[in-house]
Structure formats: C-alpha cells, structure tokens
C-alpha cells in the first residue's frame, strides 16, 4: 500500500478512537471512567498531531493534558467525594442537548466542507516540524502572546490558591 493509504488508515483508526472515547466521556455513569476515557481521547488527538507533523505539540499534549490536567481532574473528583461507581450524573435535558450538539455538528461540518473543498494536506514532506523551529517561532514572531500566556498562567496560579485556601 502507498504511504497515502497508510495515512488514511491511521487517520480512521485514531478518529474512531477519539470519537468513541469522547462519546464515552460524556455518557459513562462512572466518574473515574469518564476521566480515564478522556485520556483515550487526548492520546488519540496526540496521535493526530504526530500524523500532522506536529511532534512537539503531541508531546506537550501528552505531558500537560494526560500528565497534569487529567490528574487534576481525578483529584477534583476525589475531593468533591463524587460517588465512585455508577450513579446518575445527567440532568433531564439529554434529548435537547443531543439535538443541540447534532445541530452544531451539521452546521459546522456543512460550512467547513463547503469552504475547504478540494484543499489537500500535502504529506509529501519527509521531515516533521523540528522542536528547534517551534522554539524559534515562539521566541521571535510570537514572543508577545507568549509573555501574555505566562502572565495568565501566573494569575491563574495565584487565583487558584486564593480561591481554594481555607481561612
């Protein structure tokens, strides 16, 4: 099989993984399982980034999302003493929510397919994006947004400590 076919195969495998894990995140009745299925969806997204030549973004995804954010979520679930095991976590507007989500999906996909019809991603490039070139881009063209994000993270850190501390 050609390289293009393999890329399609990999895409469909991980697209199915992301979709299945995502649906389970929002429907499972066990809160811990929801967090663990989120790991599946995030790892599938990381595989997509590797497929799209973005190795550095993929590793940041694994480290920050899977390593830090999901662990934080699990701590949040434990500290709020969520009932572990099956329980009802959905409210009574499930059909309305499904309708709303389906409407958003149909509208956005129709618009996106219409707008980007015939545009291809060229997978002929052999090398991926090097970490060096990402670093150069962040610290030259995008240094101002980078500083803003740093200040945002600092503010969020201080804010989280102030909000959550017991006094």
């Amino acid at each position, binding site marked *: 099989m050609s390289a293009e076919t393999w890329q399609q195969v990999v*895409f469909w495998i991980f697209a199915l993984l*992301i979709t299945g894990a*995502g*649906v389970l*995140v*929002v429907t499972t009745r066990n*809160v811990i399982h929801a*967090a663990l299925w*989120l790991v599946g*969806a*995030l790892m599938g997204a990381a595989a*997509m980034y590797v497929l*799209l*030549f*973005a190795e550095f*973004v993929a590793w*940041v*995804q694994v480290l*920050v*999302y899977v390593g830090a*954010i999901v662990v*934080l*979520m699990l*701590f*949040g679930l434990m500290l*709020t003493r969520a009932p572990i095991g099956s329980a009802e*976590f*959905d*409210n009574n507007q*499930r059909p*309305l*929510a499904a309708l709303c*989500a389906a409407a958003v*999906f149909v509208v*956005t996909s129709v618009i*996106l*397919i219409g707008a*980007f019809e015939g*545009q*291809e*991603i*060229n997978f002929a490039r052999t090398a991926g*994006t090097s970490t060096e*070139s*990402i670093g150069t*881009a*962040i610290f030259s*063209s*995008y240094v101002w*947004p980078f500083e803003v*994000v740093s200040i*945002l*993270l600092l*503010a*969020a*850190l201080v*804010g*989280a400590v102030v*909000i*959550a501390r017991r006094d």
Partner: protein
Amino acid sequence: MPVSFFLVLSALLFSIGIYGVLARQHAVLVLLSIELMLNAVNINLVAFSAMLQEAGLGGQVFALFVIAVAAAEVGVGLAIVILIYRNRQSVDLDELDLMKW
C-alpha cells in the same frame, strides 16, 4: 489527504463536548467536556498548520497556547468547584441556583 477529514473530526469532537456540557450535572464532568472542546480546536489549528506549511508555524504555536490556557482554566475551575463543595456539600449544577433570578 483532504483537510476536511480533520475539520469534520474536530467538529464532531466539539459537538460531543457541547452535549457533555449541556447534559452533565456534576461540575467536574462539565470541565471534562470543556477539555474535549478545547482539543477539537487544537486539532483544527494543527491541521491548518500542516495544510499551510509555507505560512509558518502559527497553528502549532497557538495550539501550544491553547494547551496553556486550558491548564489555567482547569486550575481555577477546580478551585471554584472545591470551594463550592466546601460551602454547599454538593457540586450538582442544578442545585446551584443561588444567582438565578
């Protein structure tokens, strides 16, 4: 490979996130659904970055920024959830109607 494959995948993931935000009752599960939506945006950004290879690395850099903002959001969000739990012994969003008129 058509770029619309990735765009439709991310639209699907975003819609799943919307369903989760609207249908879930537990505050932490709503935060999980928001993470799904942020990931849909990231897939979009990285796909466009791969499509427009000549235009530089803006898509990937902004995907990194989105990840950083998601980390900040989760930190503050969980702090608020834990504070609500401490005050009301519950994080059921349907019971938090104090500011509802």
